[in-house]
């Protein structure tokens, strides 16, 4: 039963990606201006026409889309219109590993800080430990990355000279960007974790286990935690999709050659192929990760049934 459900979801992936690609394809073309607006002017009309023809921008839009789909089936996202020596596949192949490793580290940091923080706040509910933990969690979600990153650079990097403040060459270089990127999400995860624990702890099966005389730590960690962590699990799908594809702010501030800047620059420069390629990458990651989250649900919560 379950297998069928996930198979159907997997099959639905294709039309969904198709719609998203069509949507982004139309979206970037509706915006005024074109990819060659910043070229040397005045270019003669002949040259402009030639450039347009080279990238098939002179064809009707539907024909361009069909051409794009035909390329996509072969796994080819086309040539970037702004960085014309690179295909979109090249750009992704170069920048995605950097962004993904930064993102994964930040994900690990966020989980490592957020889960224990939320767990202990919930267990110490109503005590000062809970107040302090909850306040810390709210504080984390209220300090944006573009405040954390420069503050870390000034204090830890320039004043105390503990860690390097830019570039992406050694594990030491990863410390500040990972903290700056992950801090916000630690707060989100801590709040979800706390709320999850508070929802599970009044359950009857917890009371029953406690009445049976089960050790409190075993009870909480073994019986409450797998259910309480479910909100965090469902949040981690979109979170990972976000983190893996890079953050513009953090990567710009720390001068890390990741994917984040391409999202912003691509859409600012009307780099049609790059934008559509990135949207498809992001949407693909998001849909697959959400599917993985739903699979994890079945493993963690025996009550969940899909049919």
């Amino acid at each position: 039963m379950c297998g069928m459900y996930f198979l159907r979801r997997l099959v639905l992936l294709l039309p969904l990606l198709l719609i998203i690609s069509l949507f982004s394809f139309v979206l970037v073309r509706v915006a005024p201006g074109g990819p060659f607006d910043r070229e040397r002017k005045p270019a003669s009309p002949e040259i402009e026409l030639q450039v347009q023809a080279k990238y098939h921008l002179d064809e009707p839009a539907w024909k361009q889309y069909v051409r794009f789909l035909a390329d996509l089936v072969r796994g080819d996202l086309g040539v970037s219109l702004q960085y014309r020596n690179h295909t979109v596949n090249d750009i992704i192949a170069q920048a995605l590993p950097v962004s993904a490793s930064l993102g994964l580290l930040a994900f690990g940091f966020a989980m490592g800080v957020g889960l224990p923080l939320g767990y202990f706040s919930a267990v110490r509910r109503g005590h000062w430990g809970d107040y302090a933990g909850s306040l810390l969690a709210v504080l984390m979600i209220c300090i944006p990355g573009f405040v954390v990153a420069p503050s870390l650079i000034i204090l830890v990097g320039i004043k105390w000279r503990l860690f390097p403040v830019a570039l992406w060459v050694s594990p030491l270089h990863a410390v500040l960007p990972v903290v700056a990127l992950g801090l916000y999400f630690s707060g989100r995860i801590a709040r979800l974790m706390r709320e999850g624990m508070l929802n599970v702890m009044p359950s009857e099966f917890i009371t029953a286990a406690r009445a049976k005389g089960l050790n409190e730590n075993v009870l909480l960690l073994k019986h409450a935690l797998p259910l309480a962590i479910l909100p965090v699990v469902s949040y981690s799908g979109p979170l990972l999709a976000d983190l893996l594809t890079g953050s513009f702010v953090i990567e710009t501030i720390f001068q890390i050659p990741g994917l984040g800047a391409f999202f912003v620059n691509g859409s600012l420069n009307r780099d049609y192929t790059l934008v559509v390629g990135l949207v498809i990458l992001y949407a693909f990651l998001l849909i697959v990760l959400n599917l993985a989250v739903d699979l994890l649900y079945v493993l963690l919560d025996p009550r969940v049934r899909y049919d």
Partner: protein
Amino acid sequence: MTNSSPASEPRPGSDPATNRPHLELNQRAWHRFRRNRPAVLSLYAVACLVVLVLAWPLVLKIVSGSGPGGARLAQGLQPDRLSEAQFQPPGLKHWFGTDVHGRDLLSRVLYGAQVSLLVGLVGAAVSLVIGVFWGAVAGYVGGRTDSFMMRAVDVLYSLPSIIFVIVLLTTLEGVLKRWLGALGTYNPGGATRLVLLVIGLGAVSWLTMARIVRGQVLSLRQRPFVEASRALGAGPVRILARHIIPNTLGVVIVYLTLTVPAIILYESFLSYLGLGIQPPMASWGSLIAEGADQINPIRIYWWLLAFPAAFLVTTLLALNFIGDGLRDAWDVRAGNGRD
């Protein structure tokens, strides 16, 4: 309200003509909210900030009218006034110091607060209108329309919002400039930016609101009072406007309070990128960006970063506490979109 009276009894506070059942619920929730100390404190803090922000231009005006010394003082405090006193650390003359152009940072932070707060509030209102409309129509009409509208929400969810915002901002910019130019608006550039930001941010922030409202409408439209209204011959528009949407208001307001800080944060992010408010106007985000630009290993101008960031973080913190307090008081939870 320590004793709970039965709902049928007429209460002095309720309006006997409409006799809405949620009135008493709202009163009880409000009571719960007032016992939440961080939330109440935050409410006062935000009120103080708003008063300060609104009063500051008046203060400058009054000071400048109080003789030649006052005029000079007020001149130095004007947020757009360039001067020789660059990078002054915080002191008696400039409480928050001065920036790269010698402008008084306190004034700039308070004028920037106008933009940040305005964009946050109006942007949240835009997202409210779109979200409530979308969710209410989808939930009430149901069937194909519902699944089409909600799939559209899913598609928008899986689009990176930064791309959507940038394209939206640039597309709308030309259109708006022409309109506002035709209307003869004063300072079309700045006004366009503000309107653009409000529309753009509202247009990417309504998705969760639509899901929540739809869920509420789905359960409300089965209720007897809606059926009664339908039996009396009320049309769908009237039922939605008079009976269903007013009953979703509690939940909607709670999420609205949580949307405001989210939009303030997004605006400051866009301004930080240089896509938001344009100089010489400022918002907290653009001030933080200016501060971050001045980071170098030789001299540290910490105040350029610290003061705008402190205002931004405190405001976000307070708004989040208020939102959380309202949510707990009304006891509403967001579904995770699975049902």
